[in-house]
């Protein structure tokens, strides 16, 4: 009896390992390449970015996050980034709201390209800061575009979304977090 259990042990270990593989490969929404942000519940980094010339919105600095008592959505985008275009309709939706700030960091982009892109697809952002060499991005822990942060009115980072937003992300994650934070104030 005892020995039989011992013989079954390798089989059990194998089944356990393969079970984990199966889970890791099939569970939806699991992407091991997505890094958890270490900046959640930490104050947003210091930065002061100039705006895009030729656009009617100003640049973007750390202080703008805490200035008007609103929740801020900070989107990292670039004109060369295709997924950014995919999530652009949701940015337009967020930008139309006046109870939140929608700010953008224009990541590793040429100003003329960014300008052309925004003219073509519409500018939803209330403020845009240029980050040509991604130094501000590094301080935000950005490792790709698009990324979207939610920052409370005290300047604390509350959420980070990696990759383009879709309808489900907006309705099930982003908007509830914004509402929740607004209710706390």
């Amino acid at each position, binding site marked *: 009896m005892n020995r039989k259990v011992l013989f079954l042990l390798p089989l059990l270990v194998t089944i356990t390992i393969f079970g984990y593989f199966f889970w890791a490969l099939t569970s939806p929404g699991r992407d091991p390449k997505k890094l958890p942000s*270490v*900046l959640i519940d930490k104050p947003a980094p210091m930065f002061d970015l100039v705006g895009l010339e030729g656009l009617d919105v100003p640049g973007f600095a750390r202080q703008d996050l805490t200035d008007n008592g609103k929740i801020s959505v900070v989107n990292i985008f670039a004109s060369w980034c295709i997924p950014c275009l995919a999530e652009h309709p949701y940015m337009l939706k967020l930008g139309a709201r006046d109870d939140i700030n929608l700010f953008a960091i224009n990541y590793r982009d040429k100003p003329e390209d960014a300008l052309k892109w925004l003219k073509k697809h519409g500018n939803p952002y209330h403020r845009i800061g240029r980050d040509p060499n991604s130094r501000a991005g*590094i301080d935000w822990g950005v490792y790709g575009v698009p990324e979207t942060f939610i920052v409370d009115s005290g300047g604390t980072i509350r959420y980070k979304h990696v990759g383009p937003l879709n309808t489900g992300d907006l309705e099930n994650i982003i908007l509830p977090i914004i509402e929740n934070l607004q209710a706390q104030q």
Partner: protein
Amino acid sequence: MRATINATGLGLLFFTLMLLMAINLAHAVEPDEILDDPVLEARAREISQEVRCPVCQNEPIDSSNAELARELRLVVRERLVAGDSDEQVKNYLADRYGDFVLFRPPVKTTTYLLWAGPGLFFLLGGVGVFFFYRGSRRQKVPTPLSPEEQSKLDQLLADKSGKEDSA
């Protein structure tokens, strides 16, 4: 007269090209990044080899061609020039990208299992091996043959010796 390239020359050219490509693959560090101070540069290289590029996640920033990796290499060098210790530079990056960017994760409560894991498994295996051999040694005392088996064995042995005699 037209210039002719003989086989040796072509081979040499090919070899040089391959060598250049190999060098290019091994080092993504570009000339304009290199610091004038060789000591600081050596430290920068050492740190860069232990920092994971967050974009191409299994490559150190030292050999990664990603734009972010280049920027991080520059950050590493700037921190060193500003007088940071190696540890401070690594912490600076880990504060932004998490311990994930360090190929050698720090020892702390969340990583105890990671660090102790191999030792624990070795110990577990050792205990297993110990009991396996102890168990097999105990079984070396054979159970005595039953009277039937004994008589059958005697018969077989008798048969065998009889055959050998006749042969």
